[in-house]
């Protein structure tokens, strides 16, 4: 059994005299005057889209413009939870497709993203939460996604560390158990797509902010950057927390608010927590990373802000509740905290597809839950751009749904769970 798994590739590093470097991220080039497609933003979504444009649709004259360093936005800041146990059929189908892409990711892109199925538990501490869990479980099962509402005995068996006492402020009454819930190395996902796209000819330009858009007669013509003007037949924005700012440059408004979301990690511990635990009532979630750190977060900050400064309140609230769930962690220490800017929609579903500006496409409204959707966003946005028509899976997420009263309500499945 073991020999089949010996990581042979590793040998070439040890036995070569000179380190066989391979550039995962291409060197900065000069900007061309024009491209077939320009993508604003260099996060996971943008890189995935570029990859699928080149791979699936043969569109390789593509340029990614990132204002900072590659994938340094929310792609670098998220807590890497991947799951498909959403509430609406539209959502479940979409995220499940993402999980399918993730499952083959490390082989397809020849990059181990450390994809790890841990089992995802959304704890319910109220009647209402038990109801929502059952609702999600039923919808999931109907669509072929592995989810089940489980009760305290079963929870205690599967998560032996949880405090299951009745004598706490929020006793645990049930949980939505989603065995395929996973974590992965977030940066690696972006890097793998970057390398994959670059190999197929996509240009990646870091430290190149887009400062304006050229729109003529309602059609996009190009973008202005810190390094000059670049023309393009088609342009997509995938800029997460800056969504509204960039859309404004294109001349349209969105029902999106930018709100900080924070997270923190502990000093590395020997592995003891295998599961991903989420509690909506307590506003906390936690998993243990492959480095042994507890990765923890909660819901968004109480107010909107274009800023990424950390707060003390967040940590105090978070850890207070964390110790209600896992009282053995009192002497464990927080090592680092950070924040990202999330683009929140009213219905907790994304805004994707065409826009009021011709040949201008948007991938946004990813709020606090878009890491898991990185592959499927890339795939569906590439299709949308290539055909100037939205991919079936993202049709429900069209912008005008807010005017048409066709919201896709995912609040019950996305507010703390991400």
């Amino acid at each position, binding site marked *: 059994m073991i020999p089949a798994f010996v990581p042979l590739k590793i040998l070439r590093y040890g036995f070569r005299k000179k380190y066989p470097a391979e550039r995962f991220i291409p060197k900065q080039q000069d900007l061309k005057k024009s491209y077939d497609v320009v993508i604003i933003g260099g996060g996971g979504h943008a890189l995935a889209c570029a990859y699928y444009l080149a791979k699936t649709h043969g569109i390789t004259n593509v340029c990614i413009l990132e204002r900072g360093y590659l994938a340094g936005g929310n792609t670098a800041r998220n807590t890497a939870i991947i799951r498909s146990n959403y509430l609406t059929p539209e959502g479940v189908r979409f995220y499940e497709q993402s999980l399918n892409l993730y499952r083959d990711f490390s082989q397809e892109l020849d990059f181990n993203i450390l994809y790890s199925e841990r089992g995802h538990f959304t704890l319910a501490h109220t009647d209402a939460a038990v109801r929502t869990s059952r609702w999600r479980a039923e919808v999931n099962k109907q669509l072929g996604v592995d989810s089940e509402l489980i009760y305290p005995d079963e929870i205690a068996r599967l998560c032996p560390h949880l405090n299951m006492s009745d004598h706490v402020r929020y006793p645990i009454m049930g949980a939505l158990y989603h065995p395929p819930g996973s974590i992965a190395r977030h940066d690696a996902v972006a890097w793998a797509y970057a390398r994959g796209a670059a190999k197929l000819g996509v240009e990646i330009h870091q430290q190149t902010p887009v400062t304006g858009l050229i729109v003529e007669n309602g059609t996009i013509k190009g973008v202005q950057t810190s390094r000059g003007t670049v023309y393009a037949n088609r342009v997509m924005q995938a800029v997460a927390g800056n969504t509204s700012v960039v859309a404004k440059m294109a001349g349209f408004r969105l029902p999106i608010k930018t709100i900080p979301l924070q997270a923190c990690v502990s000093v590395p511990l020997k592995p003891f927590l295998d599961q991903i635990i989420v509690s909506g009532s307590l506003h906390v979630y936690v998993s243990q990373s492959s480095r042994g750190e507890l990765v923890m977060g909660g819901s968004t900050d109480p107010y909107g802000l274009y800023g990424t400064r950390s707060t003390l309140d967040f940590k105090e609230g978070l850890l207070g509740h964390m110790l209600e769930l896992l*009282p053995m962690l009192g002497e464990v220490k927080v090592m680092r905290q950070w924040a990202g800017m999330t683009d929140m929609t009213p219905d907790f579903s994304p805004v994707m597809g065409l826009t009021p500006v011709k040949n201008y496409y948007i991938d946004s409204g990813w709020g606090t839950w878009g890491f898991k959707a990185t592959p499927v966003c890339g795939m569906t946005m590439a299709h949308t751009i290539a055909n100037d028509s939205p991919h079936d899976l993202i049709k429900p997420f069209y912008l005008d749904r807010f005017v048409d009263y066709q919201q896709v309500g995912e609040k019950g499945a996305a507010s703390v769970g991400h």
Partner: protein
Amino acid sequence: MSDVNRLPAPFGRLIDRSETVSFDFEGRTISGFKGDTIASALCANDQWMISRSFKYHRPRGVLTMAGQDANTLVQLADEPNCLADKYPAKNGLKVKAQNYFGSFDNDMARVVELVHRFLPVGFYYKTFNEKKQSWSFWEPIVRAMTGLGAIDPKADFHESYYDKQYLFADVAVIGGGPAGLAAAQAAAEAGAEVILIEENVALGGSLGYARFDAEGVRASRQLGDFERVLAGTKGVEIMTGTICSGLFSDNWIPLIKGNRFYKLRAKSIVVATGSIEQPAVFRNNDLPGVIMASAAQRLIRLYGVRPGRKAVILAANDDAYGAALDLIDAGLTVAAIADLRPTVPQTPLVAAVAARGIEILAGHGISEALYSAKTHISGAVLAPVTGEGTLGGGGKSVACDLILMSVGFSPAGQLLHHAGAKFGYCRQSDMFQPVELPAKVHAAGSVNNVYDLGAVIADGKRAGLAAAKDAGLNVASVPAAITEKGNVGRTHPWPIFPHDRGFDFVDFDEDLKYHDLINGIADGYDNVELLKRYSTVGMGPSQGRHSAVTSVRIVSRETGVDIAGMSVTTQRPPYTPEKFGHLAGRVFDPGRRTAMHHRHLELGAQMMPAGVWWRPAYYGGKADRTNAIETEVKAVRENVGLIDVSTLGGLDVRGPDAAEFLNRMYTFSYTKQPIGRSRYVLMTDNAGVITDDGVACRFHDEHFYVTATTSGVDAVYRQMLFWNAQWRLDVDVANVTAALCGVNIAGPKSRQVLQKVCTDIDLSPEGFPYMGVKMGTVAGIPARLMRVGFVGELGYEIHVPAGFGEALWDELMEAGKPEGIRPFGVEAQRVLRLEKGHIIVSQDTDGLTNVWEADMPWALAKTKPFFVGGRSTEIMGKMKLARKLVGFTLKDSGDPCPEECHLVLKGEEIVGRITSAVKSPSVGKVVGLAYVHGDDSAPGTEFTIKVQGGRRITGVVTKYPFYDPENKRQEM
């Protein structure tokens, strides 16, 4: 053999030799003195190896003696990852090393080191993905190897005591070294209330351990001066042994001391946190015996511990020579000083060292530390510097058991980073320095790139005065910034000497060698942020304190980007790891109890959470649940029951525009609502989604008492304030939820019972009809009474001031004794209301339900011009309904009762769900509410329900109320 390395007094400022302590380290008894840290006691006992490294499991010992590195992380019985060089040695401690397999001395995992060539930077991204199953095979193995300390799964935070306290100051000075002391003194003399925070147990900073002059007297003299002056200065509160772990917006400062977490709000701040001595890179620079020069000085002066016997010093500044003198004074042999500088300036310290006959090798570096057993070094190879980062071959080995590194510093600027300061590279000093500070935050001393002791003190004074001025104190003039900083020649720009055979560490926490960084850059991760993420440099417990600057230097050289345009990676809070317990404190998350809470408990109620409240679910044992609920239902239907409804939201809306205000907030019309009557209220949001309901009771032309749902009231109140901030109607809204409490007495005999205790109100059906509201007294208690019909029987809600709640409950229970009154809980109420088909907002509605879907167009006022959500409601009214809330029963009475949220299917498509369902005791069959497809909502239509186990059963749309369809009973 204990204490073999202990030096006599006066070495050891912090230890008290009159009191010994002893503790256990890995089965060895270690004895030390009060005032020792775990690490200093271990060193005194010749135990140099303290931990095993993260990846290669290499032996590690003390590095900084300042709590700044991960080498000294140890495991205590109840605390993982504890800093041994900070944690006081105490009797009876059980200390273990971390991260080893088998035994500490013979860590089996050290074999990883042998295959290091096969584990290049980021190797895990490049392999284990050959086949789909490869990673699932390898992951558990890799995972088991990670992590440092271990937790005790049986520990319980609730058994320890942590608390919090607020503090206020005009000026907070962080750091009690010469800069901080001078700042505190200056600010206090200007009249400021100062809090001076020092992480270590004693004030002084570098004055406590460093050497500024050949004679070795200046530091202690200076410290003595400060102590004398401060003792006579009013307004300085000194907090030693206190860690400032972050600087947040608006000068919000967390401090940790003992088990207390302080939150300090200061008008202005002086950060005088000093600098962090930086290591050099050479082969085996990580092994026990290779330490910072400042660490050796700390061991000697603070703890009276001899750091070794025979030393080699790697020097690049004058401080190295101060350290050399300290070693000599402590009785060590200094075998040689390898000075990276081509010529060594003849300063007084250098002269003093030379005068003692120590060999000084100018233009030399160390290429390698040697060892015989890897647990401690045994020599150093000295070689001439031939270029930037290169050494000549054929170096000479010198036997030694100690190598000091004194090659430079970097500002301890974490807190300034947290506050939003910007750092830039200073070419003169080859160090980063703060170049832009936020308002009301000042930096002083070596964190501010000022090094000469006199200049440091002057800088502290300047910052202290500036901070006092910021705090609003009268300061005549703030001195200009210091220009003669004494920072040149302190830090070598390239103390990095990679070795062919590796183990030349850049990051000790993460076991990253020089070539790991070079290879990472070659893989395309060619800026510091990307390199950090790829190689993990700086991601360990010490958060880049010793690796960040080195990696910037390396990236700059490899990419040709000028270092002057670069910055170190962002430093994020906390400064030092904070315990969860500290952050949590006493966990203030109170549950609310009603005024009658204890009565429910006495009656054996099972309590359940409801929003922020606890409410009785039912009365009786858990095993008896179904029975208890049925009995309670029956009591209300046939006799009389009493339920605590205190948690219901209550809002007093008063003022000339009160009716108009409600018209805009709710879907109905309230202008013509008669006084003494209540009316249903239904709230929608801008998108037309139902958000709350209740009743509005009009007690006066200008006074409505509006109820809201238990969990919705806070949001309703917020919405009311939000909207009226724009409308500016003449109303006042008060949330009186907690001010009032209430009960609902319901059932055919409720009037009979109430009459006994309520004599000032005409309770007859004519005098007090259904939907009537009145004020009066009940059992002498002033009360608001309402005839409502939620449970579908004759009933009265009685709301009284919360203080009378228990009395009200008692009086009614007593009065109802002859009738056999029974308390009933939330569960029975749910059944009762469902039998009547009353919806519960948020159970029978969801985040998208509109008035049409909920089948409540009767709740819309037809003629009024506006209400929140009105426009959306109007538009949606013209759209085809995708789903509709209907009442239902089951086609086959033998089928099980569906559970809430079981799906309604049309074919295989999900079209709706069950929102409420119960086997009704009053009707004798399953009744419920469900969303069905918009086309299937006509009574009599059958639809498919998918129940437990995937079984499909048939529901039939049924008109509701299911019970008493003519509503006769509630109107009796």
